[in-house]
């Protein structure tokens, strides 16, 4: 491999070995590579980001796993759902007189004898799942990859969109599986292009699932090398690029190993065998935010005039969806831009949960559904939870650790930051809550008030911070979920919301990007706000710090909604007016 360009895509391990050999040849001591890169990762970084190779790397998901070759370079986008601890592996060892490395692989290429010339290194194991509630438009497509595969006869398939929701007609969306299952994967099987299928034919998507994952979504066991622990936190969303391994031949009772690969990983991997859960040996990882899930970005910088137009169009759209209730639409807009951007003690600053009341059993299905669909099209991660007594009494909301399998069993509230959840209380009837129900109600209340979820680790509970946009639909004011803004909902008509693809793309960009704008209030305006708040309290003694905090947050969000970074007097007036109208309705 002298002087030849490394084939990073098809033979990443070759590149790893070559760079290793080079490093050894230039006199480096293998022991010094513990926890460090000898140049392999730099190579990949150049290839991916400097030479634009990233788009050529196939995305690993339940569709592509059928044709992606093991030991090639892939990328996986997902949420860290569980941390499986560290694994010891033989990092470097001597094969006769030659030093070899096992980094970035599970199975050594050459036999490893137990010699004193063996270096044990560590790698971290993270169990990642696709982001809960991810909508199909936010999934990256492998179309380009698929089209360029040596399939010969097959051309890109234009899969007709049957679902009513999105008018987004992204073609060739091979990776789209949503919740309906995958008609596209069936097509892939029929095409059967690759002669070296490493995945056994007839493998239904159910086989490669870990037990707690919805069918159609592929989890992945990520192995992280040389990484600071603080970099990767639970529930964060990352893109991992690395070597894909998947052993469909794996026999579960075969104990073929040297102690160093199995002995210290305890029971955990027994439940995640390599023929069911793919592994990804990570070279490079990158934290993803909501805006990384936009398929394309029309502009990079929010220019004020452009933003204003988009805002107006979005507001019109929301008004239509909300039965012509303009005040509700305005609050909805602020709500959709909200994000926890700071924590002061226990207070999560920046959140703005919304409770729309006066929804009856009749009106809820109409507007609830419409709203749900609208949000699915606008935000990358959405969920809808219908709260009933039954649900409260049986649901597993908070994750808890199972000590038999050494796994963190997920719960409905284990969500990525930036997720949106609609809590529909309109079907909540009178009933008795058992201890699970009471506990769940408490968890929900804590989530909406403090943006944190208690995870159960048996001997103690650990608070995990959350950043979830919460919208509550109820008849009367919700007792279970006390939202920041309570607004009686007054629709006057039912309109169908027709949208164009361009508009949707613009709104998605708008909502994803503007929320991270910085914000400040100059001292002059601070004075004005102070006076206003004092006056408001004099009129109404019930107003307290929570109300003031909410108003400041609304000011920030209003300002951001216009693409501005500093609160203007005009926007502060708008906030005050909005609040006044809301309070009018409450009377």
């Amino acid at each position, binding site marked *: 491999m002298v002087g030849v360009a490394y084939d990073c895509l098809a033979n990443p391990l070759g590149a790893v070995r070559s760079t290793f050999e080079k490093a050894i040849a230039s006199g480096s001591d293998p022991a010094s590579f513990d926890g460090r890169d000898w140049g392999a990762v730099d190579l990949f970084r150049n290839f991916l980001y400097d030479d634009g190779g990233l788009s050529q790397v196939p995305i690993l998901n339940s569709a592509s796993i059928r044709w992606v070759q093991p030991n090639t370079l892939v990328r996986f986008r997902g949420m860290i759902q*569980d*941390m499986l*601890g*560290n694994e*010891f592996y033989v990092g470097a060892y001597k094969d006769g007189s030659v030093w070899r490395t096992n980094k970035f692989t599970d199975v050594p290429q050459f036999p490893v004898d137990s010699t*004193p010339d063996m270096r*044990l*290194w*560590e790698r971290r194991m993270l169990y990642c799942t696709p982001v809960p509630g991810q909508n199909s438009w936010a999934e990256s497509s492998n179309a380009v990859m698929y089209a360029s595969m040596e399939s010969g006869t097959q051309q890109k398939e234009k899969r007709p969109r049957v679902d009513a929701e999105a008018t987004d007609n992204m073609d060739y969306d091979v990776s789209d599986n949503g919740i309906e299952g995958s008609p596209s994967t069936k097509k892939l099987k029929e095409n059967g292009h690759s002669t070296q299928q490493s995945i056994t034919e007839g493998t239904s998507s159910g086989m490669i699932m870990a037990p707690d994952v919805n069918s159609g979504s592929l989890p992945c066991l990520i192995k992280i090398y040389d990484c600071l*622990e*603080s970099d990767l*936190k*639970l*529930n*964060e969303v990352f893109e991992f690029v690395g070597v894909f391994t998947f052993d469909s031949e794996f026999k579960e009772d075969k104990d073929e190993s040297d102690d160093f690969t199995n002995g210290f990983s*305890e029971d955990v991997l027994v439940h995640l065998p390599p023929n069911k859960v793919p592994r990804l040996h990570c070279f490079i990882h990158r934290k993803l935010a909501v805006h990384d899930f936009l398929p394309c970005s029309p502009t990079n910088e929010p220019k004020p005039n452009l933003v204003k137009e988009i805002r107006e169009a979005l507001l019109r759209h929301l008004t239509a969806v909300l039965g012509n209730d303009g005040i509700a639409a305005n609050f909805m807009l602020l709500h959709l831009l909200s994000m926890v951007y700071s924590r002061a003690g226990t207070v999560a600053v920046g959140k703005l949960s919304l409770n729309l009341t006066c929804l009856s059993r009749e009106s809820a299905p109409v507007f609830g559904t419409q709203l749900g669909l609208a949000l699915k099209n606008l935000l990358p991660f959405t969920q809808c939870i219908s709260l009933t007594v039954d649900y409260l009494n049986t649901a597993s909301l908070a994750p808890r*650790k199972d*000590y038999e399998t*050494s796994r*963190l069993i997920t719960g409905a509230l284990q969500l990525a930051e930036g997720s949106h959840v609609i809590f529909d209380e309109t079907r909540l009837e*009178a009933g*008795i*809550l*058992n*201890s699970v*129900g*009471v506990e769940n109600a408490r968890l929900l209340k804590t989530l909406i008030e403090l943006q944190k979820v208690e*995870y159960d*680790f*048996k*001997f*103690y509970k*650990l608070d*995990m*911070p959350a950043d979830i946009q919460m919208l509550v639909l109820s008849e009367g004011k919700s*007792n279970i979920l006390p939202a920041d803004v309570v607004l009686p909902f007054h629709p006057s008509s039912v309109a169908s919301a027709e949208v164009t693809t361009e508009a949707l793309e613009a709104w998605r960009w708008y909502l994803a990007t503007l929320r991270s704008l910085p914000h400040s209030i100059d001292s002059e305006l601070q004075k004005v706000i102070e006076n206003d708040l004092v006056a408001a309290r004099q009129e109404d003694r019930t107003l307290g710090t929570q109300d003031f905090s909410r108003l400041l947050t609304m000011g920030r969000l209003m300002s951001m909604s216009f693409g501005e970074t500093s609160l203007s007097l005009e926007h502060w007036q708008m906030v005050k007016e909005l609040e006044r109208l809301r309070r009018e309705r409450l009377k």
Partner: protein
Amino acid sequence: MKDIDFSAEKELAKDFLSNFPDSNGEPKYMRILQQVANRKFRAIEIDIEDLFSYAELDEEFRNRVQENTRRYIGIFADAIDELMPEPTEAFTDDDHDILMTQRSDDGPENMDGPDPHQKMPPEIKRYFEVYIRASSSGKVKPYAIREVKASHIGQLVAVYTCEECGFEIYQAKIQELSEDVPKGHIPRTMTVHFRGDEEEQVARLAEDGNIYEKLARSLAPEIYGHEDIKKALLLLLVGAPHRKLKDGMKVLADMGICAIDEFDKMDELDRTAIHEVMEQQTVSIAKAGITTSLNARTAVLAAANPAW
């Protein structure tokens, strides 16, 4: 991993064992060996503190022992084999001895040589076990679970231990303390394996008829007497079947203890509420149109002065 010169290390070990003085100036470990020879006990515990304070041993040796504990246990065991004195008291053959005699008798005819046991690995021949005891004085800092790394394999590691290991298990899982878990991470666990004599110790504890008394006395040792009260408290702590220690893990955190003083001064209504908790382990609540019955797996400890 540096190569160890086994015979040199063994000599150092022998020197230490023969000469390390106890507080009276007598060789501490030779006394222990004599006891072992007389079958008084089987475990030989070498205190790492002693290695630290023995002048003839340099720091390097101590570090090597800490870094490669398993190997050095073997080295010390070999040294002990050579130093083991003859028994000075009569004792009955225990199972181990009988087995060893049988094995040598059954050996193949064509095996000659001075040691009929020579084909057996030394571990089987031995009737003692060597342990190296980690420092308890704080000279060796215990590692938190998270700090234990690959480089520590084979090294002597003192880890925060769970306070109560249950009976009938030889393996326990320990979990990081909540304050040690970094933000955004989940607690790490580690499995602790008990070897050899430790298993027996744990089993013996379980069978000990006096365990009730012993445990009761160990509760609040600074308070003298009140044995009955202590026993009651103990029962409270261990409590109902579902609280029994499972897999060696602490269940204490699961339930609360409600301590009430001047119970007789409580009004009737409150007291009956407590009765429900004590009898049925539930409590009924009615509020804002919602009635519910909650689990209240609380141990209630009520104190009152006697009526007469």
